[in-house]
């Protein structure tokens, strides 16, 4: 071994002298522990990032999907203009059909037992205001003109009106 390497070994031994016995191994263990923790943290961060992207894509996809379908409908209608109206029919089921038969209907004949009363015009006379008030004499009442050709007879006592109409 060369003198240079001998001195290098001596120097290493000199500098390592009185160091904590397990310093070298303890430092290696500590560094490896930190490295593992760092790797674990990095992997976790990557996983969260990927999940975040997926969630974002899912949200964006959900927001855009209905808009695309709404937009596409008018385009489809415009592309196929129809000059006719298509009507589809189908036969009704038996239980929904109502049929009649001649023999099931009973014909009822009626006889004329109604008395016909006929009136002739000019069989009444129109009375004036004084004659009307004379008819209700003894019952307090006023005649109110409500229009050019209409009037209303109002009794002071409503009970009088009932009695008057009955009579």
């Amino acid at each position, binding site marked *: *071994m060369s*003198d240079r390497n*001998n*001195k*290098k*070994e*001596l*120097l*290493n*031994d*000199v*500098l*390592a*002298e*009185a*160091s904590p016995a397990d*310093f*070298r191994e303890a*430092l*290696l263990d*500590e*560094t*490896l522990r*930190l*490295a593992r923790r*760092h790797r674990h943290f990095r992997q976790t961060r990557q996983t969260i990032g990927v999940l975040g992207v997926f969630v974002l894509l899912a949200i964006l996809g959900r927001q855009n999907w209905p808009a695309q379908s709404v937009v596409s409908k008018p385009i489809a209608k415009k592309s196929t203009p129809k000059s006719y109206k298509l009507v589809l029919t189908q036969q009704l089921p038996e239980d929904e059909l109502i049929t009649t038969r001649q023999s099931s209907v009973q014909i009822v004949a009626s006889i004329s037992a109604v008395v016909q009363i006929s009136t002739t015009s000019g069989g009444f006379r129109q009375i004036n205001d004084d004659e009307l008030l004379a008819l209700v004499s003894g019952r307090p009442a006023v005649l109110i003109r409500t229009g050019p050709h209409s009037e209303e007879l109002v009794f002071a006592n409503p009970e009088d009106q009932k009695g008057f109409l009955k009579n």
Partner: protein
Amino acid sequence: MAYRTFYDGYFDRLLRYLLVVTGGDEESAREVLQLTLVRVVRHVKTFDAEEKFWSWLTVLARSALADERRKRRRYFAFLEKFTLHTDIEGTAWNDGEVDEKLRALLERNLKSLSPDEQKLVGQKYFARQSVREIADEQQTTEKAVESKLSRIRRKLKDAVLSELKNERPQ
């Protein structure tokens, strides 16, 4: 394991570098070494040449040292930022300079050892004798030889770190 290979290959080298950069402050050098190794794990990338990789490591080490000093002197952040800027610029040692400096300090302090101590170091590190062979030659036990070697290494370390501290730019 790749990291173990890296660790075995660069632990001593980085520690030597940091001892010089921190001006012989062993405690700081250890703390900054840990910070540097953590940063290596976090920011490791591919290099096409070993020199570039080492250069990147020394940048990490110096920036970790700057952060560590800033943390220690939080109340003087502004002043520290200014002084650290000049400090980092001034301590941008390259690998060869660091090793050369440490080797020179080691050789100087080897000469200050007693003749017996120099002989023992020579037997162990330059003649490549085993501890058992040395113990047999000196008619003592292996444990006694190990103990002597440990004391000599400790003395050399204290001397080297002390000189580094004395040379630290003010």
